[in-house]
């Protein structure tokens, strides 16, 4: 890529696969379990984290030399909280239904381990541009897993994608439902998200043996 140097590009591509925040670092699991029953919610959650982490990383990186290390966690919290409130208000104003579905989980982005993790591990020690790329990369890695999980959970659990029925109508028994197929209620429960994330981890590690820890 001409736009990014090789090292910078790695900041974005690494978290997408081999250093994925959810499947490798096992951070941000709570929200991945809670809101992935619908694909739309997963997507919005991904975008929200993308916004918060991208901008937050830059802000922290800009302030990295003036933050006293003793109170850095408080400073980081204030930055996240400010950004999360912006996201929350925007959602309430423009997508009220969605904001209701996501309910408290937008607010809980503040406690998402990925965000504090990247602030601590990366933004405090790197320049703004690299921090921005790192934030985008990690948020995308998070969003990818959320979307994969959300896709399977909504498809198998409700027979819809983005709320649009794709397998037929379960009440009128059209499409595959006429063959006796039924939605899998287990998919709508958070434990199933954990199992799907586990399966993704399984597939990922059996494809890349270097990821297996002893």
């Amino acid at each position: 890529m001409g736009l990014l140097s090789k090292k910078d590009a790695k900041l974005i591509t690494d978290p997408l696969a081999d250093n994925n925040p959810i499947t490798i670092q096992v951070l941000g699991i709570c929200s991945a379990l809670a809101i992935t029953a619908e694909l739309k919610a997963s997507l919005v959650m991904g975008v929200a984290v993308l916004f918060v982490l991208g901008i937050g990383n830059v802000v922290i990186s800009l302030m990295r030399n003036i933050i006293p290390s003793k109170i850095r966690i408080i400073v980081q919290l204030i930055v996240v909280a400010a950004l999360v409130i912006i996201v929350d208000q925007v959602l309430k104003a423009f997508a009220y239904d969605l904001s209701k579905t996501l309910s408290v989980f937008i607010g809980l982005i503040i406690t998402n381990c990925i965000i504090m993790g990247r602030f601590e591990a990366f933004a405090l020690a790197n320049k703004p541009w690299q921090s921005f790329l790192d934030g985008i990369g990690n948020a995308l890695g998070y969003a990818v897993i959320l979307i994969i999980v959300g896709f399977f959970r909504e498809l198998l659990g409700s027979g819809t994608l983005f709320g649009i029925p794709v397998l037929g109508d379960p009440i009128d028994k059209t499409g595959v439902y006429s063959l006796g197929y039924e939605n899998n209620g287990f998919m709508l429960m958070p434990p199933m998200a954990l199992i799907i994330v586990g399966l993704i981890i399984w597939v990922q590690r059996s494809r890349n043996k270097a990821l297996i820890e002893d």
Partner: protein
Amino acid sequence: MGLKSNLHNLKEKYKGTKMAPAFNAIHTFLYLPNETTHNGTHIKAADDLKRTMNIVIMAMVPCLIFGIFNAGYQHYSAIDAAAGVVREVSLLGNFITWDNFVIGAWTVLPLVIVSYGVGLLVEFIFAVIKGHEVEEGYLVTGMLVPLIVPVDIPLWMLSVAVIFGVVIGKEVFGGTGMNILNPALTIRAFLFFAYPTWMSGDKVWVHGATELAGTPDAISGETLLGAYAQGNTLPNIDLMDMFFGFIPGSVGETSKLLILVGAAILIFSKVGSWRIIFSTLVGALTMGLIFNGVVSAEWIGESSKFYGLMNIPFWQHLIIGSILFGAVYMATDPVTASQTNKGKWIYGFLIGFISIMIRVFNPAYPEGVFLAILLMNVFAPTIDHYVIQGNVKRRMKRLKVKTA
């Protein structure tokens, strides 16, 4: 050349290749392999994994046969009941009949075939991928599964659940002997949470009740426990029916008598732990007694939604629902149970205790046995850990006293 020597030749020919485990598996499954006694013929212990599994399967066969007849009997009995005719059970008169057998075999045998077919297929695939021998572990699971599901469960649901149970419940942990959760119960739990309309309620337990629902020929398919949870009771069922198993329920769990026969086989052959079976029943009775005490102390009145189940005499908890089946065939699974003797007492007691608690307090899960066993499966290693640590500490103390 018979099939056996053919298989043996194939085995030799494909030795070391990817398909070898598959041939080996068919060979060991059908015959005694040629290469069993290379050394150690003076060792007389014969309880290898395969024999252990076969004894468990043998102990379950009576339940399966009874389940087949009972499926037919309950079907016709419910039809009679819908027409206002009350049936009196007579073993040879209207229970062991050709009609009952045909209906039962038609509904139950497909469950057995699907359970074994799909489960062994998954095991074969994993054996080929991992390059190890097919383990006998699924033989018991495959037999348990048809016994713990309702007769009318759609076969595709059963296949999905079996794939889930074998892969997530067993293979991800490393196969037979490494699993934390009982695979058969994992399968049942999956079915219960994924397709609750097919696993609970007042339709699925009698063949035909779901199909006929809403038509003029509608029949009832309710279990006794389901009725109690609603604060009702089923007509025309006495204690003897409950004990001998002429009641609706999952395929193989209704006949307490035959489960006791199975328990005797397991205990006599030392395959199942009598400590677990006994302590599970003690746990269930204890919880039942506590609830009876609560009722007789008048802490809750008849208006309470728990009254129906709490008011059952404590010992009747053992003959309604599937606690006995769970205690005998599920809790005793040597892989997922506690290993230490003291641990087995604690493990079993808590299973019985929690089962009855779930049964009474949560009407949405009228049968809590499978949840209780799965929960205790998770805690079994912890129990063992503390039992062993306690042992170590006691011995250390003794050592100190001696040396001092």
